[in-house]
């Protein structure tokens, strides 16, 4: 087994990887930016090295520095997590050149799947169905794209060639609005991936986003661990994922799983990866893209299969054969993951920054929380707003939903706004309970306000609470007029009073 693994990431996923290494008896090396000195992955790791200033370009994207550190500290492998350098084939190659194992696919597979246009071409050859769109390999001018658009037909999607996570993605209703949207798409793609290339894809309406988890070893074995339902998105950002999907039956699952495995074979894939499909109302499915890395939502698959995906990643990266054959993979119960973001659900999901002053995690049976934050930690504007993943397991989907409700109600975070109320409202929505939703549901058919109407209202209690707090504050502020008369007990009050105003 590896002796020492460097984790080229931050936040909850870095912590997740530290845990997997610990449980395999492997030493861990954290890297961190100036903003993350107190981050949990730094606190938990055996070694920690500073990369540079807070902005990603000067820290977590500094491939060169990271490889130097790995060399100097004698790490024999690097785990990239997701985001940052996870899908940069040049980084994977550089690790290999430095004689350091990259815990992920071969550089060539990342390149093949990383360029979305090339990926489409590759899987089409392998006989995998894709969404109609521009088949040409990247680099198209606005003019070319505008002309192609009419052939594909509207509505359509502009997507970043180097893209992922909806960045640089725009939806186009008509020829007229397309030029402006091309601009903003290229701009976002440029700032996110340093590559402004985009391509077009027909928009499948009423579609679900279904993805399959792939595990492959270096001996040619490729299996899938079933699907994840990821249709609940906002601005192409996933908000909630489930396994299994209420849209699939065993037959369709096997059919799509087989195609997913075929797509992975097409780029002779190794390690963990995810094949994303669009599934339309008539159960036609189209290859969307492959994420050549560990996925944010991998825990829902772990909960229903009992397989530790990160540990398995490390094993196969070491050259071991997969611990499971396809027939060993059994699905048990239902799992749901809510992404807890530092953002204000009552103000257009505006990101929220600040210091977490208090937090109470939901625990108990069937509840798992993956997080990189804790009370006293500062949420900065430099990285993505996800501060935790709340995952629950239940014998049935209904039980999982009831458990998630219970867990969300227990979860307390003070210091930043979170989208917990959004998830609570979602849990109460009848369409979600019925499993009847597509990728448009959140944006087009869900509103915090309307949905709220279903839940019981409690104006009077709210009035009483606000009045009591207002009253108390008036009294407190009164007690601190004369500073000189303060004694210790007063300071405590003041401290509290100041916190209340943070």
């Amino acid at each position, binding site marked *: 087994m590896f002796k020492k693994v460097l984790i080229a990431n931050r936040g909850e996923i870095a912590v997740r990887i530290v845990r997997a290494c610990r449980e395999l008896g492997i030493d861990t090396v954290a890297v961190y930016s100036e903003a993350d000195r107190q981050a949990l992955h730094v606190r938990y790791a055996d070694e920690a090295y500073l990369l540079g200033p807070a902005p990603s370009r000067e820290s977590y994207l500094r491939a060169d520095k990271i490889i130097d550190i790995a060399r100097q500290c004698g790490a024999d492998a690097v785990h990239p997590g997701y985001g940052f350098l996870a899908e940069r084939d040049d980084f994977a190659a550089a690790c290999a050149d430095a004689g350091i194992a990259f815990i992920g696919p071969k550089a060539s597979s990342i390149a093949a799947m990383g360029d979305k246009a090339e990926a489409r071409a590759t899987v089409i050859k392998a006989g995998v169905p894709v969404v109609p769109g521009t088949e040409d390999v990247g680099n198209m001018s606005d003019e070319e794209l505008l002309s192609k658009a009419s052939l594909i037909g509207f509505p359509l999607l502009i997507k970043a060639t180097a893209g992922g996570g909806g960045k640089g993605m725009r939806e186009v209703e008509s020829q007229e609005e397309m030029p402006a949207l091309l601009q903003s798409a290229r701009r976002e793609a440029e700032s996110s991936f340093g590559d402004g290339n985009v391509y077009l894809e027909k928009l499948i309406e009423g579609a679900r986003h279904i993805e399959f988890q792939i595990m492959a070893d270096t001996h040619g074995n490729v299996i899938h661990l079933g699907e994840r339902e990821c249709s609940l998105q906002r601005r192409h950002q996933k908000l909630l994922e489930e396994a299994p999907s209420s849209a699939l039956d065993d037959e369709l699952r096997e059919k799509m799983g087989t195609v997913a495995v075929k797509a992975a074979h097409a780029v002779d894939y190794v390690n963990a990866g995810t094949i994303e499909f669009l599934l339309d109302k008539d159960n036609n499915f189209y290859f969307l893209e492959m994420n050549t890395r560990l996925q944010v939502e991998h825990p829902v698959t772990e909960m229903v299969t009992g397989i530790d995906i990160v540990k398995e990643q490390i094993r196969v990266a070491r050259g071991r054969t997969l611990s499971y054959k396809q027939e060993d993979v059994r699905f048990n119960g239902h799992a749901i993951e809510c992404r807890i973001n530092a953002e204000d659900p009552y103000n257009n999901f505006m990101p929220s920054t600040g210091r977490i002053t208090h937090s109470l995690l939901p625990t108990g049976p069937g509840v798992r929380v993956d997080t990189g934050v804790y009370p006293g930690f500062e949420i900065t504007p430099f990285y993505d707003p996800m501060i935790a993943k709340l995952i629950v397991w239940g014998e049935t989907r209904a039980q999982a939903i009831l458990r998630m409700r219970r867990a969300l109600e227990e979860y307390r975070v*003070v210091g930043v706004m979170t989208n917990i*109320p959004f998830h609570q409202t979602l849990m109460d929505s009848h369409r979600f309970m019925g499993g009847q939703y597509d990728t448009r549901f959140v944006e087009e058919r869900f509103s915090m306000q309307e949905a709220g109407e279903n839940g019981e209202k409690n104006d009077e209690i*709210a009035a009483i609470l*606000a*009045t009591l707090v207002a*009253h108390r504050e008036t009294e407190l502020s009164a007690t601190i007029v004369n500073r000189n008369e303060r004694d210790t007990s007063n300071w405590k009050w003041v401290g509290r009073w100041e916190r209340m105003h943070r």
Partner: protein
Amino acid sequence: MKYITTVEGRQFVVEIVDEKHINVDGKTYEIDFETVSGQPVYSLIVDGRSHESYVYQGDDNWQVLLRGRLYPVTVEDEREKRLRAAAGGGVVQAGEFHLRAPMPGLVVAIPVTEGQEIRKGQVILILESMKMQNELKAPRDGTIGRIRVKAGESVEQKQTLLSVV
């Protein structure tokens, strides 16, 4: 002490009788009200019903987060109430509006120019933070006044970006 408390248009007259009792619209309740962990998290037991809430100050009101629902609440004592009534009351729609940065970030684009007429809801600035591009919209119709930042500039939280007159 008597307060006039308003929740989404609904008005309550709340009187703090003593540590353990309050009176709401003439009905008296036994209460047990405590702060938890010295945080703005409050535990309230009213006639046996246990409630826990995160209560914090909004710009001009109180925000009460209770069982996954946010209640905007205004609390005024009788004096304040009278004063506002005298002042003609109601929230003032006119006057200059200053667009402030809701969080630290990078100004990506400013799709408007000084003096330009704008509509309520129109995007007037794009701010990038946490790797997301956030579109800041006009709160009402008006004209763009002074623009204090330019694209590419990093801004602090609450920094004034531009004004709408």
